[in-house]
């Protein structure tokens, strides 16, 4: 009896261990289909919110940062209508600027980042915490222009780039107010609840930048910051002829990377997250991946910095049924007749894609 009892105990223990191991093995092997579907991008459009939160002439570099990123995302295919550009000060027209109307991001001055086709959506004193949060959460005031709204949906990949003067848990806006990391996290959470994004890439270049993404809880957010809490982000170099710092280190190296990216590039977000090692950045770049489902090394960088325009060619007929078909047909006929009356009217589309940039 005694022996059989012991063996029984032993057997039951063995069984327990076996089942646990078996269970673990089962957990590790997710269905392949599911893994693939998660890694595949599901977004349908791209948006970018680029914010320079600080004013004053000696903060020239922040404007240069934002305009450089603006130029890159535009080059990679996000149209102006889907870029919200916020500039807290007008460096180009500052009386202290020896080169009126121009902003450079490099002392060698080969690219004027404030070129001909810059559309600033929020300018000067319009750049406030209130406007920024309203923009993100879609609670813009009545009468806000369409170009000043973030018209994203559940299929949008959104790039948010912030630069300015930050501290532990806040980013200073203008010279009078600041947004806290909690406010920022709440805004992103609201965006998620309102299905205003598919995935969000949050990029900050300020001092103690990592403190800004600490409070995030919403899913599908990938965040990168130029410095950890307690660290300063540094500027890259001075233009001795203008007498201001030109660009910040993190943005400078990020741009160096982005310049080599083409719209059909195979570069991944994983590579982008490592653009600024400590030896060149001096500050430590912080990355937050725990809210993000996909493996950044398998995500193409164009998922955030470029724009997809999915086209599907169909050979067969597609039946589109409308709710009030009659009204639609009548309206279409009326419109056609009206157009026929103004037969001289000719529609010209401006070139939507700035091809001259790729020459």
């Amino acid at each position, binding site marked *: 009896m005694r022996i059989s009892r012991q063996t029984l105990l032993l057997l039951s223990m063995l069984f327990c261990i076996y089942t646990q191991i078996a269970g673990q093995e089962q957990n590790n092997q997710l269905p392949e289909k599911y893994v693939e579907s998660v890694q595949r991008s599901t977004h349908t459009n791209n948006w970018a919110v680029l914010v320079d939160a600080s004013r004053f002439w000696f903060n020239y570099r922040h404007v240069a940062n934002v305009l450089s990123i603006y130029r890159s995302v535009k080059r990679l295919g996000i149209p102006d209508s889907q870029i919200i550009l916020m500039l807290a000060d007008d460096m180009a*027209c*500052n*009386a*202290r600027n020896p080169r009126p109307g121009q902003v450079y991001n490099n002392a060698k001055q080969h690219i004027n980042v404030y070129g001909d086709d810059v559309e600033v959506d929020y300018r000067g004193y319009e750049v406030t915490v209130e406007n920024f949060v309203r923009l993100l959460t879609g609670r813009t005031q009545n009468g806000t222009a369409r170009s000043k709204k973030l018209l994203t949906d559940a299929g949008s990949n959104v790039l948010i780039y912030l630069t300015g003067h930050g501290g532990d848990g806040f980013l200073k806006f203008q010279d009078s107010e600041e947004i806290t990391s909690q406010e920022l996290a709440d805004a992103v959470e609201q965006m998620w609840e309102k299905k205003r994004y598919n995935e969000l890439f949050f990029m900050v270049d300020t001092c103690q930048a990592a403190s800004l993404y600490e409070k995030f809880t919403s899913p599908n957010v990938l965040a990168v910051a130029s410095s950890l809490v307690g660290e300063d982000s540094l500027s890259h170099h001075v233009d001795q*002829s203008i*007498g201001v*710092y030109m660009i910040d280190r993190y943005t400078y190296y990020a741009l160096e990377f982005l310049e080599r990216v083409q719209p059909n590039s195979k570069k991944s977000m994983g590579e982008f997250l490592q653009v600024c090692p400590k030896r060149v950045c001096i500050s430590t770049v912080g990355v937050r991946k725990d809210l993000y489902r996909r493996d950044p090394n398998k995500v193409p960088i164009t998922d955030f910095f470029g724009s997809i325009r999915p086209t599907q060619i169909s050979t067969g007929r597609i039946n589109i049924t409308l709710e009030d078909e009659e009204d639609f047909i009548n309206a279409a006929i009326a419109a056609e007749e009206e157009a026929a009356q103004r037969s001289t009217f000719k529609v010209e589309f401006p070139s939507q894609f700035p091809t001259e940039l790729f020459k």
Partner: protein
Amino acid sequence: MGLLSDPSLTPRGKFGRTLAKHSGKISLFFYIAGLAWFVCLSHPEFSHGTYLSENALSPGLVDPEIGQDSLRLAQSLYEELQRERTEHKSTTPHAWIAAKMHQIGLETHVHNFTLRYPFSAGKEYHGKNVYGILRAPRVSSTEGVVYAAPYRAVNSVHVDITASVPILLAFADFARKKNYWAKDLVFLVTEQEQLGMHAWLEAYHEGGIRDSPILRCGNLPARAGALQAALNLEVQDLDIDYIDVKIEGLNGQLPNLDMFNLVQRLTSRSSLSSGYKHSPRKKRRSHRGSLEDNLRHMLEMLKIQATGVPNGNHGLFHRYRIESLTLEAVKRTTNTNNNNRYGSGLSLLKTIEGISRSLNNLLERFHQSYFFYILVQNDRFVSIGDYMPCLIALASPMFIKAFLLWLTTTATTDETVSEDDSVPSHDEEKPPIQLPYISVVLFMVSALLLGFLCNTLPFSQHVRDYFTSMGVSTEMSVGLILGVQVLLGTLLPLFYTLPEHGLELLHIGVLIFMGVTLIVTGLLNFALGFILAVIISPLTILLNNEHSKGFRQNLTRLYTFLLNPIVIIYLLILWLTLFEFPELSFAELGMRALKASLDAITFGLMDSIIYGNWLYTAIAAIYFPLWILLWTLSLGRQNLITQLEKKTN
């Protein structure tokens, strides 16, 4: 048993009396502590390193663009000006300066001013300032920065600083070609030393609103918005040995420390030897940074601040909250470096360019760094929070002693009452002590009235006209007015006898009055407050109602007598004359010193009337009455004796 339970010795009285016994020692302790604290400030442990706290200034981020051609222009202008000077021995070549400014392309104007000398009626001095405005090309004229150069005529007694005008014009020529100015640049050439600058500033800020009858400034034809900063140049030659930065302004005001640091930073960048109270290199090398050197540095700064007279044209800007300082470029005397003769001139131009670009970057008025500080070295300073305690320590024994005196005055009366009754009595039963408040207050008011007269009589037009019509010279008339006042003040205690306990009450009143005055003066002008506290405070230790006898009393009287403002001025000037003219006999020295001190008083009065320096006002209206009261206290023994005699009779 008796001692502990004796109700006549209330804890308050007992405690007070014990302390009062040692009040002299307590005062001495505080006095020594205050002085020791000040000496400690010279130690690096107690001072801070200077730093720039205004981000907008960002000094030295631009490469200087001003070049050899600007220096060559300065040289040719200098030669031209030297030729002009042969024709204008005692006047300024206004036409030449205005023509040059016009040629450079500045908006040039001339400002006329007239000084009606307040004493000799009808005497008038005329002056002209020339200024040119370079308008900021891309913004409205809401802000401006002044670059000023005083011009001294050939027959001036001061050091020749003719080279400042060519340097200013060469810089104006350079600035004219640049498009990045965000503030108007005003290039100003003044004459008649500080008078011209004062007249221009008055006209700039108050022209068209009001005009003083003494210095008629008129109005300016053009302005350049709110002035943010000013740089005054006193260049002795284009070949510069070193730069002395002068900062002390009217009434001891100082420019923002950021402005001083900015200049230090930029001069060192363009490899110019520069600093506050700078001296030639050879003298400097031996004892730099030692405690003794630091202390001397601080004391020299306090010495200049205490007089309230600015040591350069920059000092007048401080009145309008415009940060300004003077760069005094001192001529090279040793011919050691002949091959690089004008290299230093170019460095100076580069420094001015650097300063101008940093000031151009300013977004607000200077508001970041310190406004109240003492420089220990060029790169070290003591802030107001660190130096005020020594003044507090010097003034606090006055309040402590006043409190203790108050306690003992009541306690002694308690004791006498209880002894008379020979029965321990309670507090409620005692009659309230009759202190002669009214007569003491009246006495203090009459002393203040004398001070008031000292202040109003010399300022009054009628009095001045009367003396002028009598044919008395200015110095004599002022001396006469003040002499009579001082005599009255000295005699006041002899024909105004205070009643019983009046002296104690007066003592309390004087101590509080003295402490408050010193602290208020110290807040307005620390240097003046501190120096006055150092010389007045010993009286707190010496003055004592009860035990002053023989030697101590005589010492107190002598010290009080020496503290008389007029005696102090005379002795100081006598001391200086002794060093200046050691060959004179004693009688001659005395006469010369008397004449010089009358002059000094008149100058003080002039400064007060024309520039608004309040040293004269403070001394005449506050410290002279205070002295009368102290004098009464130190003589007080006699009155007390007569009272006692009356009592016994």
